[in-house]
């Protein structure tokens, strides 16, 4: 494939003179089409083939199984509730048409702000939002109005990220900031029974249908089996229900080394330990729930695989990652069981540990510094 003409075209349209302020936008599109021809000038003459775009795109690919399954499940839930007899592909198509505008709104609003900030600062546009922009519509209820979604994305990108200097400088996971914004600004649209199942293709009308977590929080009988929750044929946020689809993504993230296995494993360990502790106490029904149910319900698996492992907002030292993950898992289960006002503890638990991560790292690094000082005295 000879693409010399495209290379030349890009070089020809490079903004110069009075248009040079458009440099960031040009660079974003140019490097999207072609990995630059920059050669090493100082330091190592050879470099690894991986770059930020490649790393982020792996995250996006890892999200695809959960995304495809989530689309099918949107249709599946509507079909069950309305009693319609739909072909499985129509269920998927229904969900696809519901998800497409949400994904489009998220990317358009987010990328517009990202480009504007990059342009204003004279920075290059960072790839981080390619993952964030897909994550946000995947963790909200299907009936979330698009204008709310747009507001949440704008809030997450500006307040969650850009005010701190952009990707790599933020301390809160932007996708969870968006969800937290919706959760606290529009609580009626984010929890309860009437948000999880879409009524028709276009409106934001919902059909009553409780998630397993909602049932547990209100003390009603859990209607879904563990197998249903594992496969994901239950009501919930758009793409977070299937633990199997999430596991496929997790395999890719771990195999490529993009996500930290320490964090992923320790979140499950922390959650499991807390679950077992509650089993031992066994004060009420929720506490007696088998500990592994916590992994299957709600956003636990999705949060552990895609949210807690965000390297920017997680602890950065290997020891710190263990502590960070264990506490996320433990707090998530603690919140679920002990605070019925917040049926889903995963989001708040991760956001809280995002805030604590720098402190954990500080302590871990301080131990290294201490060790060095002691050695010098000897």
């Amino acid at each position, binding site marked *: *494939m000879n*693409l010399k003409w*495209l*290379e030349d075209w890009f070089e020809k349209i490079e903004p110069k003179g009075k248009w040079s302020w458009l440099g960031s936008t040009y*660079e974003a599109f140019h*490097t*999207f*089409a*072609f*990995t*630059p*021809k*920059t*050669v*090493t000038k*100082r*330091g*190592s*003459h*050879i*470099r*690894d*083939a*991986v*770059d*930020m*775009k*490649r*790393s982020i*795109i*792996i995250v996006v690919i890892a999200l695809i199984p959960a995304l495809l399954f989530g689309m099918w499940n949107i249709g599946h839930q509507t079909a069950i509730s309305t009693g319609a007899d739909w072909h499985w592909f129509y269920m998927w198509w229904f969900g696809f048409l519901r998800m497409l505008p949400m994904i489009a709104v998220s990317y358009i609003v987010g990328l517009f702000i990202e480009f504007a900030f990059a342009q204003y600062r004279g920075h*290059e546009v*960072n*790839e*981080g939002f390619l993952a964030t922009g897909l994550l946000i519509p995947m963790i909200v209820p299907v009936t979330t109005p698009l204008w709310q979604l747009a507001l949440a994305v704008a809030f997450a990108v500006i307040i969650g990220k850009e005010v701190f200097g*952009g*990707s*790599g*400088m933020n301390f809160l996971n932007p996708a969870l900031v968006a969800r937290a914004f919706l959760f606290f600004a529009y609580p009626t649209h984010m929890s309860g029974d009437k948000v999880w199942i879409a009524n028709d293709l276009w409106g934001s009308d919902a059909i009553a249908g409780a998630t397993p977590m909602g049932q547990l929080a209100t003390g009603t009988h859990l209607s879904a089996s563990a197998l249903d929750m594992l496969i994901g044929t239950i009501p919930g946020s758009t793409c977070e229900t299937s633990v199997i689809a999430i596991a496929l993504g997790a395999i890719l993230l771990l*195999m*490529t*080394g*993009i996500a*930290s296995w*320490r964090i992923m494993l320790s979140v499950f360990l922390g959650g499991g330990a807390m679950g077992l502790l509650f089993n031992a106490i066994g004060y009420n029904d929720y506490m007696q729930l088998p500990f592994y149910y916590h992994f299957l319900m709600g956003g636990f698996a999705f949060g552990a695989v895609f949210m807690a492992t965000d*390297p*920017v907002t*997680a602890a*950065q*030292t*290997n020891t710190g*990652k263990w502590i960070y993950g264990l506490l996320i898992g433990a707090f998530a289960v603690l919140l679920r069981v002990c605070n019925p006002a917040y049926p889903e503890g995963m989001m708040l638990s991760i956001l809280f540990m995002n805030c604590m991560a720098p402190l954990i*790292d500080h302590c871990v*690094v301080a131990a*290294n*510094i201490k*060790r*060095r000082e002691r*050695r*010098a005295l000897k």
Partner: protein
Amino acid sequence: MNHTIKIKKGLDIPLGGLPERTLIDVRCIERYAVKPPDVVGFTPRLLVAEGDMVAAGQPLVTDKHDPRLTLPSPVHGTVEAIVRGEKRKLMEVVVRKDLEDLKDPKNHKDLTPEAPVWWMIKERPFGTIANPDHKPKGIYVSLRDTNPLAPDLDFALKGREQEFEAGVKALEAIAEVHCVRAEGPHPAGNIGTIIASLDPINKGECVWTVNAQDVANIGRWYLTGEYRPERVISVGGPAAKTPHYYRVLCGACLKQLTDAQLMDNSYPSLTRTTNTTRIISGSPLNGTTVAADGFLGMYDQQLCFIEEGDHYDFMGWLMPGLKKYSFSKTFLSGVIGTLGNIGSLIPIHYNFNTNVHGSVRPFLFTGNFEQVFPFDIYPLQLIKACIVGDVELQEKLGIYEVEPEDFALCEFIDPSKTEIQTIIREALEVLRKEAIA
């Protein structure tokens, strides 16, 4: 004292063009150069003029701050050229060798700063020539060079065992000498890794280091009084025609070697970089680019030929990447490599070029540096302390234990394409200047 250590963390980059174990003795090279910019912290003052006759071992330049430190002529001959760069910075002093070797009859007995071989002893922290006023807590010699395509030092030193022993003896008069054989992937053989695993440098301390081949050179001078800085260098790389070993003198003109190695139509020059080969004196991880008729670096023992990678790569971030090497396994090559390279789908050695493979970004990913950095140091935290210039924090995090070359692999695998070695060098330079003042 001899040690063997084992290192687990690290990476042997599968770079193509491994040199064959055949040694060619190049005796007819006519021009040699001393290159002061290769020596950290050395402010050169010229001692000779063009046309002067010099003997092998006679000082050509001296350090303005410490006149005892000199860089001697590697051969007996005539000063042919004094090459200056920007702001009249002294780049090279070129000596044309006379046909007959003039034996230096003097027989020094002690290894003093005035000895022509003194510059071969380096000091850590900072990587300068050993300061004769300092008392090192040890002298370290690595018996293995683990850099990509680096020479096998056992092969290079074959037949020089006696000289090596003598060199160790000469150095032992100053401080205890530790000859260390490190096992494991690169950077196991780096002197910094060795020191860190045996006895890390604390603030206010210093150690000296000598390249194993230079120990033999010191030994020869110690035994016979003859200054003859020999180097067996490995010549290789994906763009080299017939990779193998050469025996040359330090500072030798590379023209003969490069003529033999360059592929057709790939003759490089420093001004044009299209469709050419880059010639690197030293490791591909931290060496210096040299011209085809340039000179071997002062401390280098390898020469590497790599194709310039100044071409676009269509949607490089999306392609499967069977022929691209990445430590991260984000390319198909890495995944297949993990599975045991079924059906030889991927190369065993990769044709690296000099492309950066991406654009510069802030640090996003964490934990990857630790996998190739066998120090009890938090690499990302230290790099960040260097970027913000927090000297106190750098000291606390162990800046004195490292040199830029120790971060070479971090720089290689870094997905955000930061020039980490430059950051570390600049931070160390600030500290070094503060230490002098």
